[in-house]
């Protein structure tokens, strides 16, 4: 068995179909364990009270939003370099989930911010760059939606993602300097309370669940895209007829 075999759309379609249930159940399992740790194992924080439990959802979501963007950039670079069509499909399949996690990081962060800082939102470097990351996701998806020709869409989206990938760190640092150069931030936001081991484990378990979920969802989406792209091939016609 060689790797190139699975780069063939038909083989990918079959393999993905077999893998999806594993990832989906894995995600459910880890999520259940993670939720159990979040609510029943992790003790109350003496500073923040129960509100800190948002961390178990907030941090994994924030991590995922950034990781997924990096993975998309990776696939796009591969696609542009080696002209592999499946890699572009992977990027397309990942984007909506990345945007979802980005939104969730913002949402949970805001809900956490209200009790902690007394404000739903402050223009801090991390928050702002997360917001801009969401804009990038939206822009990429809008570009894909606007281009009807699949090949052009793949490449145009890939270029935008790569430019964004170069720019994201720059944006992050510029926002950071912006804030420190302007005025001292009154509250030091992300100073994590010295993290207990249970909290770390809880976050890790939830992050793994998010990963498995992302992979499962992306594979389902990629399968759909493969079918649409290859609809003139015999194997797809057979699948459609049987469905």
């Amino acid at each position: 068995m060689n790797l190139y075999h699975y780069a063939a759309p038909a083989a990918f379609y079959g393999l993905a179909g077999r893998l999806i249930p594993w990832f989906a159940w894995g995600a459910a399992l880890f999520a259940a364990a993670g939720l159990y740790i979040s609510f029943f194992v992790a003790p109350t924080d003496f500073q923040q009270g129960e509100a800190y439990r948002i961390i178990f959802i907030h941090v994994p979501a924030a991590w995922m939003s950034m990781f997924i963007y990096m993975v998309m950039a990776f696939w796009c670079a591969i696609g542009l370099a080696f002209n592999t069509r499946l890699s572009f499909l992977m990027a397309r399949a990942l984007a909506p989930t990345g945007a979802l996690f980005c939104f969730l990081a913002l949402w949970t962060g805001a809900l956490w911010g209200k009790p902690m800082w007394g404000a739903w939102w402050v223009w801090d470097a991390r928050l702002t760059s997360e917001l801009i990351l969401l804009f990038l996701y939206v822009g990429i998806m809008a570009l894909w939606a606007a281009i009807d020709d699949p090949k052009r869409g793949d490449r145009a989206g890939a270029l935008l993602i790569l430019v964004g990938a170069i720019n994201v760190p720059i944006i992050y640092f510029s926002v950071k300097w912006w804030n420190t150069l302007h005025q001292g931030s009154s509250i030091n936001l992300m100073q994590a309370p010295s993290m207990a081991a249970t909290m770390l484990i809880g976050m890790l378990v939830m992050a793994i669940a998010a990963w498995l979920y992302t992979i499962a969802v992306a594979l389902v989406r990629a399968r759909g895209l493969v079918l649409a792209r290859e609809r003139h091939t015999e194997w797809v016609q057979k699948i459609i007829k049987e469905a």
Partner: protein
Amino acid sequence: MWRFLMTVIRRDLLLAARRKGDWLTAQFFFIMVVSMFPLGIGADPEQLRRVAGGVLWVAALLASLLSLARLYADDHRDGSLEQMLLSPQPTVLLALGKAIAHWLIFGLPLLLIAPLLGMQFALPLEAILVLVASLAIGTPVLSLLGGIGAALTLGLRGGGTLLTLLILPLYVPALIFGAGAVDGVLAGMGAEAQLSLLGAFMGMSLLIAPWVTAAALRVSVD
């Protein structure tokens, strides 16, 4: 190579000279958006002064995006973009030349208008100078990065709005450093740090944007 670059730039300037109405609209848009703000936020000079840098810079971003929407679109429609892509010269030079021409047509007049608008916002002379300096360093970034968006959205329906959506996030560092320089000088902290960061960002855009634009043009024309 040199001749090619000069031809691209001269051609765009010539075209702009023949249709004055077209490119003046971007400048007027800039003036109008800036003038809307005192109406929206009240006429207190103290407050206006404090927001001036941000307002002028945001308006510059939006005006640049509006004018960029047609950077390649007209050439695409009448087939001259294809001719330029088929030239024996590298496409990167084309992208660079178009960005330079756009800056000359769009950015340079902005530098002349900005001081007048700065006065409307009760900015002191020193701040006006820094504002102009920041625009001088920053507007090339807008032309360069915006070119990427213009190339990517070539021929798409609703290209203008889409362009904004794609490119505005990429403009953020220019906005922060540019407006930050003005605010810095108002706060008495000096603007050198911000201006040099802006310069670095401009240098980076200059290195990267033409290549990406060239690739995007090839993708969009195919």
